[in-house]
């Protein structure tokens, strides 16, 4: 008997517990966001006008579609549709990369306008706006790190499917990676209105 055993139920429980820790982690940030927004409602609104609603909306669609693709991949592998699984996984990775690229353009635009922590322009603005951009970069930055991890993870899953390590009878790793990816999308669903759509 090999010394490392596996247990699908356990994997699922472990993954959900991990997701709980991620929610608590971002929960701390959301708590902080709500407190500062409560204190500076007008400044937060003014600052939010600087963000591009178009880019934010596009990115939301990109991430939602990517998430859908992984969810469909989890279904497809259970039906033994290996090729479809791989196509879906590849498209989700491509969309995730697109998300990062759009995000990069957004960040670059902010830097161009001097709207980043410690910048001279921001120093001339009210404190609430400084906080808004501090939180914006901290929260979307941490989210972007999660997206990057997700890209690596889904690419790895793709190769494992190709090498027959993830099979219709043993889809656990794909399903769990999908859960993680849905979590990343879920966090964005909260970040998007909180930063782009507030008034």
């Amino acid at each position, binding site marked *: *008997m090999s*010394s*490392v*055993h596996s*247990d699908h*139920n*356990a994997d699922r*429980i*472990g993954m959900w*517990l*991990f997701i*709980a*820790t*991620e929610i*608590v*982690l*971002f*929960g*701390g*940030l959301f*708590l*902080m966001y709500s*407190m*500062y927004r409560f*204190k*500076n409602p007008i400044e937060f609104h003014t600052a939010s006008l600087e963000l591009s609603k178009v880019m934010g909306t596009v990115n939301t669609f990109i991430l939602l579609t990517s998430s859908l693709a992984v969810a469909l991949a989890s279904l497809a592998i259970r039906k033994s549709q290996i090729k479809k699984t791989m196509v879906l996984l590849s498209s989700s990775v491509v969309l995730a990369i697109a998300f990062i690229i759009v995000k990069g353009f957004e960040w670059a635009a902010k830097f161009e306008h001097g709207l*980043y*922590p*410690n910048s001279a322009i921001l120093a001339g603005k*009210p*404190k*609430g706006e*400084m*906080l808004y951009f*501090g*939180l914006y*970069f*901290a929260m979307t*930055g*941490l989210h972007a790190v999660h997206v990057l991890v997700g890209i690596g993870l889904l690419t790895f899953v793709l190769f494992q499917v190709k090498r027959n390590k993830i099979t219709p009878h043993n889809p656990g790793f794909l399903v769990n990676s999908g859960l993680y990816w849905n979590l990343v999308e879920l966090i964005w669903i909260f970040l998007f209105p909180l930063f782009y759509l507030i008034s």
Partner: protein
Amino acid sequence: MTTAEVTEQPYVPYYASKGKYPGIFGWIFSPDHKRIAMLYLYGILTFFLAGVLLGVLMRINMLPGHKIMTGQQYNAMFTLHGIIQIFLVVIPAVPAIFGNFFLPLLIGAKDMSFPRLNLFTWWLYTIGAILALVSVFFGGGAVDTGWTFYVPFSLKSTVNVPLAVFAVFILGMSSILTGINIVTTVHQLRAPGMTFFKMPLSVWGFYSTAWVQILATPVIGVTLLLVIMERLFGIGVFDPSKGGDPLLYQHLFWIYSHPAVYIMILPAMGVISDIFPVFSRKNIYGYKMIAFSSMAIASVGSLVWGHHMYVSGQSDLAGIVFSLLTFLVAVPSAIKVFNWLATMYKGSIQVEPPFLYALSFIFLFTIGGLTGLLLGALSANVHLHNTYFVVSHFHYVIFGGMGFGMFAGFHYWLPKMTGRMYNKPFSIVSWVILFCGFNLFYFPMFIMGWMGMPRRFYDTPPEYMAMQQLVSIGSFIMVAGLLMMIANLVKGAFSGKKCGPNPWGGTTLEWSLPSPPETENFREVPIITKGPYDFSSLKDSA
């Protein structure tokens, strides 16, 4: 592998079995929960001794005419002492050593649910420890903020705060993953027939702790990340000049760090709950109440963080609510203490070393707990805040409670882990020295704190000098006892007498296995029909 082969296999203890890799690689890459526990043991013991050494240096510094360090060095000393003892020793110690080694044995499993993840947590622990050490010597020098990293000082201090904070973040990840592993294992791998209420109480201790590890640790994780981002990029969330609020840091810090106190004490309470029945030869009194009180402490304990902040300027209403909840936590803790006492009542007491350490746990924890109520009262707290009283209270609970609980655990379980018995009379002698030294050390600090001696002071006003000397002498006696105890345990582990499978007459599953157990733990999956502390069968066989 067929069953026939299993029964014919010769006995090979876990440390001698041949794994995939030779030599030390067979340990640091082994997914066997027992080997991982031993790896943790070596690391934690090393850091424990390092933390003790820093403490001794500080006590020498407090003797009149013995200023062996500068004020800045003293600040670094108490900070490092705190970081090492809390994040590298106390938080991981019981869950990672005893939880790893004994949880599967206690519930009749062959390993934890995620053996490789388990190994990964040890690697994270090691990386975190190395980063913490590196931060001492590079990039501006050792942290001087206190183990709490309070802003705004931690943002202004010129020492290497970001790396030290990042090290604690990594250690937190290790702790979270250990927690996930323990919860999953308890849910998935209990032997047939072992219902939740047939689990040994130490398993309840590990289980409730694991929930706190999972749900509280991420908060400090993100808070520490924010401190790093604040230091590196100046995002402003804790910086008043940018609209941030330093008080928010304190909230986020204590939302984790108060529950962390229960991460420290709950598993030790579980271990104690296993020890008393064995040395009283009697079923535990109030099994369900002890189990539920663990969960009650874990949940109510998560809502009391504000009692660290009575004088911070939080609202009176918040103070009153936090004070009330703090008093509430005392109830489940007291339930445990009374149940342990009731377990001993009319029992057939065997005065062995584990029992003595467990007894002193109750004594010291009760003092620590009751003085905690003084600190939890709003008015008294204003007087006692930031004095030696707090230092003493904390050490009574964590060192007297968790520490002595862990020592009791070592005296109880080390023979199972190594197969050898230490020198019992010697360990009783060191217990007496340790216990007396401990009280001589910390008790006068209550009085000094009550009189107004502030903590973290490099120098002592003359009116406290006499007591300060007494405290230092007490600390030297305590450390002498500590070293005697550890030396005895280490010697026993390598050259003690062979002790057989069940030296104490315990009834939980681990005692049904040879000492030390084999890699696979159980050759046949045990089937559980009785509660964990049923001594009637032992009577029959005796």
